[in-house]
């Protein structure tokens, strides 16, 4: 961290005087490729609703963590997120209802459970910071967790991306090529569960899905192949994250929502470029 701090001191901006801004900047620089990469396949596998539901279900993970007396509910959030994902996967493979319906049922139940437990004796206000998150509260120790998540996503993309891509195109085709689609699907669901729940504390349950979806959706507006799709998605994610953080500092707005607004702006620009091209 000291190297990062020294590097920051070279910048001629007011925000570098504050350690919390230096930490937050490093955090968004690490988080941006995590969301930029994962978002591409979340969209291609039509999992936007799943990741949104995961974000909301984190409330139940927090509630269970506090129930078990954990000071930091991160472990219970991750565990609950993974169980949530596996539960959806197991039920949707056997249920007669559509995937959307199954996710809706799980999501509503998890949110209700979370609110019910957290609101016991009128204590919900204490947890409202999880709704919008606070990237400025990130500590150097948290940065290590983000590095681990980034490495996890990179490893998944290096070793399993091709199979996930074929699966996203057509499941029958993937099966014919010997791809174990349930395994790949479940591993990807677990990965998304981990990255969403880890980031919730800093981004918030209300905004987390926007960060995952918007950069990839913006990239999709103009990309023609997989390489462009990923390069643009990560680039847009970086631009929105850094710009959003700095704008929020100078305008004194919430960092998470400002980053999302920047992503939305990038989406709007690429949408019109895409329309022009077509």
């Amino acid at each position, binding site marked *: 961290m000291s190297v990062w701090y020294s590097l920051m001191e070279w910048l001629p901006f007011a925000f570098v005087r504050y350690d919390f801004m230096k930490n937050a900047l490093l955090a968004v620089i690490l988080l941006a490729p995590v969301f930029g990469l994962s978002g591409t396949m979340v969209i291609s596998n039509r999992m936007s609703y799943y990741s949104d539901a995961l974000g909301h279900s984190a409330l139940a993970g927090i509630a269970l963590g506090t129930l078990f007396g954990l000071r930091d509910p991160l472990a219970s959030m991750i565990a609950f997120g993974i169980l949530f994902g596996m539960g959806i996967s197991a039920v949707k493979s056997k249920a007669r209802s559509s995937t959307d319906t199954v996710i809706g049922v799980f999501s509503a139940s998890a949110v209700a459970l979370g609110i019910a437990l957290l609101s016991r004796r009128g204590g919900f206000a204490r947890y409202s910071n999880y709704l919008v998150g606070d990237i400025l509260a990130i500590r150097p120790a948290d940065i290590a967790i983000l590095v681990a998540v980034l490495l996890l996503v990179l490893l998944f993309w290096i*070793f399993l991306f*091709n199979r996930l*891509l074929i699966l*996203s195109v057509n499941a*029958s085709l993937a*099966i014919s090529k*010997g791809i*174990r689609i349930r395994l790949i699907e479940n591993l990807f669901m677990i990965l998304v569960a981990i990255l969403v729940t880890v980031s919730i504390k800093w981004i918030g349950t209300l905004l987390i899905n926007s960060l995952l979806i918007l950069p990839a959706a913006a990239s999709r507006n103009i990309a023609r*192949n997989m*390489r462009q799709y990923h390069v643009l998605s990560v680039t847009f994610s970086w631009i929105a994250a850094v710009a959003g953080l700095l704008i929020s500092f100078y305008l004194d707005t919430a960092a998470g929502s400002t980053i999302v607004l920047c992503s939305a702006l990038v989406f709007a620009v690429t949408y019109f470029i895409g329309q022009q091209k077509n």
Partner: protein
Amino acid sequence: MVKNYLIGSAKKLSADSQEGRVQNTDEHHHQAHEAHPVHPGHQLQLENVSVQRGRDVIIRDISFTVSCGDIVALIGPNGGGKSTLLKALTGEWPYHGKIRFQDRDGKALPRPCIGYMPQQLLFDRQAPLTVADILGAHHGRWPVFLGVRKKTRKSLTESLKRVNAQHLLDRRLGDLSGGELQRVTLAFALNPVPDILLLDEPVSALDETGKALFYQLVKALRDQYDMLTLIVSHDLDVITAYANRLIYLNKTVITEGPIETVMAGDPPWLKGMKPETGGLS
């Protein structure tokens, strides 16, 4: 014995028993087609294969033996279980019974490589995905989100040349016409060159000339690689011109054998084939 394979294991087709598994790897392809370019007398044997979904029996007691080098037409009425049988072979559907890949003496062979062309390739047409991306994703371990390497592109161009589609390498999958998409899907099924090629109504998007060219291509591939080809089709005219064996399926095998034997004497099931589905001219 019921086999409860996970959907996606794609490992139903057994080399030596019901517990055997199919693997479609490049390594396997190289072993199968560089060291042993043909399959002398290799056979696919099905014994009492049944597929059930819930309480509905979709196919029951399917038994037949076909050999590498055969082009086998699977025909029958809609809902007769033709596509289901192919999906049991790819591993998508769990089944009862035995599926074996064996030599002429009945000795189990290593897991066969399967190429499959679905009836209709349903996918997201807006996806930023080129032909090179999808073919490259199965070509090797290099992750295609980093781009398709020069060496791979060369190899993929060769694969596409087999189906006269080399000019489509950099086209977006969603921009292809029905016929182009079918050729690309065939190239995907043929990469690596499979031991068994399964084609589920492969020419539905083609005109008469396109159909004839497609089947000529399949026949040429069979001659070159000695693969076993199973084609689901309603198009009896084309099938009789290119296939050498025929299986008439209506939940179970009604009749099967060499085309000329099966079709001899104008069998009653032929009259049941509806002309509007392309059955008879």
